[in-house]
């Protein structure tokens, strides 16, 4: 985990995503068996891309303007 430091999930490079997955799995007491790892990594990569899109959209917003429009 050292190379990951304090990086958030969204800041982790694709090359380091497996290292993140191993560390995170240990944190939540989950074992990802070797045969499942390629599929999990593929899905985690896709989820990171989706999460990045959402994060970018939220950052682009003018938050006070959004709040003002809420009912």
């Amino acid at each position, binding site marked *: 985990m050292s190379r990951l430091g304090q990086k*958030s*999930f969204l800041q982790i490079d694709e090359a380091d995503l497996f290292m*993140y*997955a191993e560390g*995170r*799995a240990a944190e*939540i*007491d*989950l*074992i*990802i*068996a070797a045969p*499942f790892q390629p*599929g*999990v*990594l*593929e*899905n*985690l990569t*896709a*989820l990171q*891309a*989706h*999460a990045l*899109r*959402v*994060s970018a*959209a*939220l950052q682009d*917003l003018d938050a006070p303007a*959004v709040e003002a*429009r*809420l009912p």
Partner: protein
Amino acid sequence: MNGPSLHRASTFPNAWRIAQDVKAGRTTARSVVSDALQRIAFDNPSLNAFTAVFADQAIADAEALDAALAAGRLVGPLAGVPFAVKNLFDVAGHATLAGSKIRQDAAPASQDADLVTRLKAAGAILVGALNMDEFAYGFVTENAHYGATRNPHDLDRIAGGSSGGSAAAVAAGIVPFSLGSDTNGSVRVPAALCGVYGLKPSWGRLSLAGVFPFVNSLDHAGLFARNLEDLANVYDAVSRESDGHPIAGRLEELASRKMRVGMLKGWFTQGAAPEVLEALAPLADALNADLDVELEGAETARSAAFCLSAYEGARLHLDDLRRRAEAFDPAVRDRLLAGALLPDDIAAQANAYRRVFRIAANRLFDRYDVLIAPTTPCVAPRIGESTMVVDGESVSVRKNLGAYTQPLSFIGLPVLAAPLNRPGRLPIGIQIIGNEGCENIVFALAAKLEQLSLVKAYPPQ
């Protein structure tokens, strides 16, 4: 294809007509239910839509209804109409599989799901439970444990998912209506690919009591039928609405309303096969729809729904993922394991975006009463086809058939999926989208399109 074939019918029996005939003594519930059980016996080996058939109970229920009629007692509006449910609805005395092997050993449900109870109270007769993607996580119903459900219009093709059995059973004419669920498009996608009507009402409008969950904040119960009148009658029978304004008797009046219609472009046409766009064009003309309508943020909303589904779905199954991951359908397992690794702030930002996207939708509904969009980017893919081409890029079928449906369920809008009138060709569906709580409007536009013969379900050729 050679080999499997289906019982062919030139017309579909109408649920409402069946109930009228049963109530008038022109037929009996027992006879109607026996016919449905025969069709299951004949067609299901080809379709693989049913995972359980409750023959003895169905016959007993039908005989009880006939006896009640003979005794002059009042029966409900769906008297004697056979129906079936996606196997994530509780049925008393049976384990609720939710498409999984893991739940084969679950304790039998102690009571029926709320919607099943309501339908039985309306006189409908439950005949079976239907195949689905494991834990409702997919758009294909190619289930590793229970096999693929085949599309009645082409047995080499998928029925769509995750409520694939529910759509196929209705499309094949086995039952006039069925229940399904829709978290990201799981009613609308199979309805479109199988050429039947599907309704996903507003979030919270139909009870989920006794329905195995997937993503609590996105789950909706839904309905399938072969015509709008049946869809409306079943909706009236199960809806929580207590405003005293059932929809079924008002379809003609609703269809005459003037409606401002917008056809969604941008994300909702991106990657669509030319055949899909061509099929939609006559609708825009007939409805005088505004074609320059964009629902801002739809792609991001879909991404947020993707993250939330993986995150919440994984947490629901975390114990089983820890103890027996190998017992999951591999395609579902890998997605859930990845979802389990997501940190909590990913779900928080997805939920934050929901509020933003809701505002964008509200802005559109200031200008339009109803919106329309394709349901899927393409016709039903072939069974076993894992990828499809969207915008020149090869993408996963399992994850992308719901590209146009996910943004809409993300904010809980009511959507009626209707089959375009194209006899003899593979079905293509449209989504008719209303503002929250405006089920009457989506029925109104569907009724108008049905009057114009632009939407219609056909028996498989």
